[in-house]
């Protein structure tokens, strides 16, 4: 029981890495310790550690070396590496320290189960320093009398341990304090470098595993100096225009070291330096005269120095200083050219002389003025004309002729050689041949084949072609022995018109022109296409050429792309010179979308879409339909008219029916006092027997009544009633006609009383009853009750009663009368009559 409590208590103490079984001493003691304490081990070596338990712990807690467990960090070391040396000492061995980590702890299994820590150590594993290599030193001049020496070296491999580097240096009998690097391990700076003493320098690297020294460097610090570059550099002009004097001050006195120099120079603005031959500046000096320079040119100079014997380092280049050489006379005359304007009058020229300002290296100074001399070569007696001009152009009014123009440029140092330009009366000489262009990077090369004659020089004119402004001419002169030049300042994607003129000693050749691009691009926009005319199966497309600014190159072709809404696109390539194209084989009455693409060597650009619909009918189709239809119609109308004309009488009768004039009626001759039923003879005279052959007569016999049904006969009954009710009131033709129906007549003839009552009326109608079929008709006179006089026509019709057409006419009359009755509101009567007729026909 005691033992268990003891272990618990001691275990608590062990957790804290302490156990105090011996409290009498008043000191806290560990139950054990490890040997060696915090070792530094070489990587890859073997290592053995011992854990030694205190005897007091053995007595107190019954712990022995056999219970010891070694751990690296929290990982238990395999027990194969343990060795129990005695009851209080256990060792662990590592054959390769690379497997070690920190901490290495000695632990014990208390009571066989609870693991408690006894002691732990930190283990450092690393490498001994390598020998520093490549030691080198340089002495930097900081000020006139201050020099610092910086030495650098290769520290070698990483040691994984704290490694101290020390730069050591000494004189023969004096060792100086070490230079200890700060923050680095490969360089150190000594602030009191002393010249003219051989100094031994080396580097010492040291850590817990060892020490290493570099090779020793013996050097006089004066031999490794990098001096400050010369100061107060100045440039002054010399008397001669091709020299400048460069002066400076040295930071180092000759007593310390003598110097040699490098001088470099360049034209201000250039990037390339030229250098004075080193042997010219190999001796100590504070000035140097640079010769062979261009007159009136700004030069930039820079200088550096080093120890005269060449041992050491070059200083940095000094600050650049500039100077300008003095002026000299211009080395050549300005290039001159002309533009002749003879538009006003062919006999009088406006000559625009223009020349180029000399380049700085040609002008050799500031050009103060130009002297222009014009000599008329066609007239030897003409005086020379001289002009002093300060600009680079001059305009002259000259009569047409041959002139020699001489130009001289002047500066403060003198005049240039003259430039001569011959202006012939005409450019009649041979031109150049095979004028071509070729882009070369940012320049445009223009080449040509020389004419057979000797050419003094060529003038190359070029201008930017623009649709909005005039061509502003630039020009350049090339020597006569060249057959091509590079044009500079040419912009890409712009069209240039280039013209080359050969100049001969006695005249000038005509110019040859070519258009060229330095670089082409695809057009900036595509052509806008539209239809000029749309047909059933074709459409005429039209477009405008792109402006030269939009082209960005030579238009090689146009491409027309068209399609229906759901159809495939059709592509047509068109010559770039055209502005119109006819699409054929189109589908009628179809919507087409068309667009146009302009192409250069470097790409294409498509213009906006345009839609159009083909027509439903082709040209002439409508005419082919309409004209025949119209002709047919006209023909029909014409035939109708002719027919009507031929049948005019018939038509006339239909339209204007002949209404008999009752006053002229023969019946009017009847004696009104003679009852109609007694005037059989008179009637017989007027209408001989059988004259009414075609008159339809309804012959109703008394017996026939029976053949009609009661229903059929009802209208007759009604008629009777109506007659009886309206008899005394009827007075019109219609009424008369209606009343003069056969039935009425029959009834009238049957009733004598009624006849007497209407004695005042005129009897004008006769009803002839045809004989049934081949039977002889019985004429029956009917008396008209109308008071209206009979018309003449009736008389005439009666006159023609015996004609061939009388039957038909009478039938028509009868029906027409019926129609009139209809129009005269007595229609029911007529209908009834018809019904009667029908009824009879049916019976027939």
């Amino acid at each position, binding site marked *: 029981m005691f033992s268990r409590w003891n272990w618990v208590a001691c275990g608590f103490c062990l957790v804290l890495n302490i156990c105090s079984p011996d409290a009498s001493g008043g000191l806290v003691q560990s139950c054990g310790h490890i040997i060696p304490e915090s070792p530094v081990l070489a990587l890859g070596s073997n290592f053995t550690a011992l854990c030694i338990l205190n005897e007091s712990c053995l007595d107190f807690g019954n712990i022995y070396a056999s219970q010891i467990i070694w751990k690296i960090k929290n990982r238990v070391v395999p027990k194969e590496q343990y060795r129990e040396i005695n009851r209080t000492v256990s060792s662990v061995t590592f054959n390769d320290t690379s497997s070690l980590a920190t901490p290495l702890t000695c632990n014990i299994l208390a009571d066989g189960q609870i693991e408690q820590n006894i002691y732990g150590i930190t283990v450092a594993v690393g490498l001994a320093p390598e020998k520093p290599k490549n030691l080198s030193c340089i002495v930097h001049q900081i000020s006139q*009398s*201050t020099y610092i020496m910086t030495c650098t070296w290769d520290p070698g491999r990483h040691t994984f341990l704290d490694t101290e580097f020390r730069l050591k240096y*000494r*004189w*023969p*009998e*004096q060792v100086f304090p070490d230079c200890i690097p700060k923050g680095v391990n490969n360089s150190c700076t000594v602030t*009191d470098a*002393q*010249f*003219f*003493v*051989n*100094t*031994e320098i080396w580097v010492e690297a040291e850590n817990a595993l060892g020490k290493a020294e570099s090779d*020793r460097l*013996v050097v*006089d610090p*004066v031999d490794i100096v990098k001096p400050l570059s010369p100061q107060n550099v100045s440039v002054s002009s010399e008397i001669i225009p091709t020299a400048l004097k460069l002066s400076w001050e040295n930071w180092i*006195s000759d*007593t*310390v070291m003598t110097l040699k120099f490098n001088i470099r120079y360049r034209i201000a603005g250039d990037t390339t330096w030229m250098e004075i031959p080193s042997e010219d500046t190999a001796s100590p000096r504070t000035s140097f005269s640079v010769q062979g320079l261009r007159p009136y040119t700004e030069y930039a100079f820079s200088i550096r120095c080093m120890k005269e014997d060449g041992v050491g380092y070059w200083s940095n280049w000094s600050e650049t200083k500039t100077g300008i050489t003095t002026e000299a006379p211009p080395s050549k005359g300005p290039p001159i050219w002309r533009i002749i304007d003879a538009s006003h009058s062919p006999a009088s020229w406006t000559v625009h002389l223009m020349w180029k300002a000399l380049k700085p290296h040609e002008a050799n100074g500031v050009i103060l003025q130009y002297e222009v001399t014009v000599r008329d070569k066609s007239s030897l007696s003409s005086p020379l004309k001289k002009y002093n001009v300060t600009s680079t152009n001059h305009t002259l009014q000259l009569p047409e002729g041959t002139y020699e123009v001489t130009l001289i440029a002047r500066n403060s140092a003198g005049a240039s050689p003259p430039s001569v330009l011959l202006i012939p009366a005409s450019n009649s000489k041979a031109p150049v041949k095979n004028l071509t262009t070729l882009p070369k990077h940012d320049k445009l090369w223009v080449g040509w084949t020389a004419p057979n004659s000797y050419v003094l020089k060529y003038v190359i004119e070029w201008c930017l072609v623009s649709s909005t402004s005039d061509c502003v001419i630039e020009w350049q002169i090339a020597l006569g022995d060249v057959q091509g030049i590079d044009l500079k300042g040419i912009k890409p994607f712009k069209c240039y018109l280039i013209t080359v003129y050969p100049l001969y000693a006695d005249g000038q050749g005509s110019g040859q022109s070519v258009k060229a691009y330095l670089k082409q691009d695809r057009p900036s926009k595509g052509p806008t296409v539209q239809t000029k005319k749309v047909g059933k199966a074709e459409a005429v497309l039209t477009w405008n050429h792109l402006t030269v600014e939009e082209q960005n190159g030579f238009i090689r072709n146009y491409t027309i792309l068209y399609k229906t809404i759901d159809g495939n696109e059709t592509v047509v390539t068109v010559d770039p010179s055209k502005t119109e194209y006819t699409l054929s084989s189109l589908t009628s009455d179809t919507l087409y979308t068309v667009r146009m693409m302009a192409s250069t060597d470097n790409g294409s650009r498509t213009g906006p879409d345009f839609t159009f619909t083909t027509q439903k009918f082709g040209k002439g189709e409508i005419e082919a339909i309409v004209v025949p239809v119209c002709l047919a119609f006209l023909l029909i109308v014409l035939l109708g008219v002719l027919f009507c004309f031929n049948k005019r009488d018939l038509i006339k009768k239909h339209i204007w029916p002949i209404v008999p004039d009752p006053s002229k009626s023969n019946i009017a001759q009847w004696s009104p006092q003679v009852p109609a039923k007694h005037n059989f003879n008179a009637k017989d005279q007027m209408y001989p027997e059988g004259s009414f052959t075609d008159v339809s007569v309804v012959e109703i016999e008394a017996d026939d009544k029976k053949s009609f049904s009661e229903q059929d006969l009802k209208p007759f009954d009604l008629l009777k009633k109506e007659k009886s009710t309206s008899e005394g009131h009827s007075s019109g033709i219609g009424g008369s006609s209606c009343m003069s129906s056969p039935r009425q007549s029959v009834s009238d003839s049957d009733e004598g009383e009624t006849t007497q009552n209407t004695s005042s009326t005129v009897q004008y109608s006769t009803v002839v009853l045809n004989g049934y079929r081949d039977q002889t008709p019985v004429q029956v006179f009917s008396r008209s009750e109308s008071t209206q006089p009979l018309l003449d026509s009736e008389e005439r019709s009666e006159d023609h009663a015996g004609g061939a057409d009388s039957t038909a006419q009478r039938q028509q009359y009868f029906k027409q009368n019926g129609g009139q009755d209809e129009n005269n509101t007595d229609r029911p009567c007529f209908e009834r009559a018809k019904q009667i007729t029908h009824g009879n026909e049916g019976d027939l």
Partner: protein
Amino acid sequence: TGVVPFVALLLLQRRPVAGRALLVTGSGCPSHGLCRSNVQEQTRRQVALLNATAQELFSLYLKCQGEPFSTEADKLCNPAGIFFPAFRVNRTSERKEVMVAMYKLFAFLNASLGNITRDQEELNPMAKELLERLHNTTKTTRGLISNLTCLLCKNYNIFQVDVRYGDSSKGKSAFKKKQQGCQVLRKYVQVIGQAARVLLPHLSPS
């Protein structure tokens, strides 16, 4: 060994002491590898450098001491009353003799310049240029002594030279310190010129 006396000598040179004789003893030359052939030329260049800067140093010293030194230099800086190593050699003297004399001279100068530098750091701490020149001259003198030691040892097998230093200025008044420095530097200007002239034929590159 021979190194110890040289080190002791240099330590003493840094410490201003009154004139004493130090023996340089030993059987071998210190750092034999550093005693190369160029030491002779280095020595000449060092003497020439000291000669070239001596007058400027003296003028600057006078300027920095203020009145009455800047106006009464001839009187106040007369070196007649102070100790200065005798430099009784000329161009015809033996090279060995010249070397020994040079050693004595610059051993004395090195110690004296140390005294002067210490005094000026106390009296004129703001005279940076003067202090810098004094430091540089002292460093050059040290290098010269190192080279002379090398030459004496290597060429003449001389391991000991009796040298004497000047009076220490420690404890003296400011004026006396200034005056002593003025007297030493004036004499130094005179002697270094002579040394340079004497040394020229002896140390010219052969």
